[in-house]
């Protein structure tokens, strides 16, 4: 496969990381003044911005308002300047292509499991995610950013929503190595890529998406690597949220 490019003999990846190392994470809460909650997340060169409006009254027809829970509306889009892989057909005005549509669907599934929507009957929560720069792991970054934005908006959640990705490198000499947090070059190499999302740091996966062929026996190490990536990211984002809370409470006094 493409093992040579992914992991060198010394055990370093193309960007100098170790196989289980995550990319540098930078996160900011409350970046948009108008939105109820917003977050900006950078994972390496992948930059994602998320905004949350709500909970508010259901726009449009009242009939769509579910009587016992909140209506979660998710929109994902990729900025035209985001780059990220092959030339994609530009979608029609105001529309999104299939890839963004799928991402929105998956994101909604994760957030529905995380948001305690029974506390907000007949209301709507809008989540908008925009990918500003794509360098691998956009789905995971979108999920994490949306989770941060929901925290910033004060929506009740079961726990922090974090996502991570992992892949597998098969160097010609040596056993296959699981890689955490793939970059775009590693994703394009054609090896298997797994994206998972966890809620509340529990061992359960709210999202699991695997592309490209992976032998059944190699699934376990890749799953473990992905979960480890989630936990690592969770630790970083946790400290960011706490710092923000301290800042907010300090300003109030």
């Amino acid at each position, binding site marked *: 496969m493409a093992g040579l490019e992914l992991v060198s003999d010394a055990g370093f990846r193309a960007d100098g990381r170790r196989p289980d190392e995550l990319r540098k994470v930078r996160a900011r809460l409350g970046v948009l003044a108008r939105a109820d909650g917003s977050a900006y997340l950078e994972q390496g060169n992948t930059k994602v911005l998320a905004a949350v409006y709500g909970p508010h009254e259901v*726009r*449009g027809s009242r009939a*769509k308002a*579910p009587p016992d*829970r*909140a*209506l*979660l*509306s*998710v*929109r994902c889009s990729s900025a035209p300047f985001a780059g990220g892989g*092959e*030339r994609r057909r530009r*979608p*029609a005005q*105001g*529309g*999104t*292509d*299939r*890839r963004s*549509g*799928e991402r*929105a*669907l*998956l994101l*909604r*599934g994760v957030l*529905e*499991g995380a948001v305690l*929507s029974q506390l907000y009957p007949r209301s709507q929560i*809008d989540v908008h995610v925009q990918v500003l720069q794509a360098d691998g792991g956009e789905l995971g970054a979108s999920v994490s950013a949306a989770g941060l934005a929901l925290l910033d908006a004060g929506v009740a959640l079961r726990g922090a929503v974090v996502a991570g990705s992992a892949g597998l490198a098969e160097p010609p000499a040596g056993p296959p190595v699981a890689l955490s947090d793939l970059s775009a070059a590693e994703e394009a190499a054609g090896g298997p890529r*797994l994206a998972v999302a966890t*809620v509340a740091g*529990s*061992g*359960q*996966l*709210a*999202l*699991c*998406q*695997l*592309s*490209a*062929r*992976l*032998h*059944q*026996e190699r*699934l*376990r190490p890749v*799953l*473990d690597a992905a*979960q480890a990536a989630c936990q690592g990211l969770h630790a970083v984002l946790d400290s960011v949220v706490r710092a923000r809370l301290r800042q907010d409470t300090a300003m109030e006094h």
Partner: protein
Amino acid sequence: MTRARSPSFARLSARHPHGAAMKATPLSNCERRFLLRAIQEKKRLDGRQCYDYRNIRISFGADRGCCIVELGRTRVLAQVSCELVAPKPSRPTEGVLFFNLELSPMAAPGLEPGRQSELLVSLNRLLERCLRDSKCIETESLCVVAGEKVWQIRLDMHLLNHDGNITDAASIAGIVALCHFRRPDVSVQGEEVTVYTPEERDPVPLSIHHMPICVSFAFFHQGTYLLVDPTEREERVMDGLLVIAMNKHHEICTIQSSGVVMLLPDQILRCSKITAVKVAEITELIQKALENDQKARKEGGKFGFAESIPNQRITAFKMESAAVDTNDVEEQAGEIIAKADPPSEVPVVHTPGTAQIGEGIESSWGDLEESEKEEAAEEEGESEAAAFECVKVETEDTSTLKETKSDEPIVVSDSEEEEVVILEPQELPRKTRTQASSKQENPSKKAFNKRRRKKRTSR
């Protein structure tokens, strides 16, 4: 040829993992509760076990690359076609693959044509990942002239009937059609490209490395119960879905979780093991079907859709017999009869020229249990015979009425019912039918048919 598609994403609703279509009949609460309760007791509506697939039927059309796959009642039609086009600039030596699944209102009333619904997007993306990203087709072999002409293989799938689990049926249909397809042979001499017609040279099959097959797992009750191959009803009440695509070499081609699922990694690993077993079975089935079709074509036998449509009924689906567990029905029935009160004497006034169709009599559930058992043992489809008997019962009704009028004082309840009440606790009417005298036989048969009719009208 490009498809003009205007993707317009309305606010995604939060109803179901696959998005509720506006015109679909909503599922009633009692049906939802019933399904969930049955799943808790590990029972499915069609009698399958948790990990059982429905029957898969593969039939081929007369053209190469056309097939219909029936998974239970879900039907998907797949058609492969090819065309010479210019390659993508970034991949000058690779052929182009195009996959498309269409949903139409023909399959189910809630599916709207053309509009990019969530279900359509998720199905298409999943099938694309399953077939394209897994590299099951060798695209390098589709190159004719590097940078100028390559084959574009187009796989179109149409959903003909929606009874759940479109993903699996479509993935089987797709891979079978691709295996079945033959593209025209082509030869290049310098600058000249000659495409041979099927008469000049035999068409060439596509080079397919492996056959990825999707297996769907539906999760219920927050991930406690899982079912393989959900039907449409089960899909409506499920929490979330996990699709694992695998080939027979135990290579996972794609995993996709959708909806609200909370899965443990162990559950995913267990599902992958189940998938391996199922994929092996399905791959064997596919190989056999392809071989049979190949044999039929070579030997000059008949092939095509017209041959494979069942000759019994064209317009309706045949009901398959479902195994019903009747082991403890007798004990249960006996208990209920023992506890039940005997039917009270209800004053019923008969006027000449009217017939009574069994209403107004206090039913004792024990009687109904027995007749249900009989119905389960009897064959279905005796509508004509039953109709005859209905007519006969009516005439007998009036005749017995006249008899009772003339012979005895007015009986408060129907004489037939009384006799049946005496008979049933001791002897099973099934047995009395064959042994008893005709006098005893007729009332029990009449009562049985009356109840059959009552059951049919009440359905």
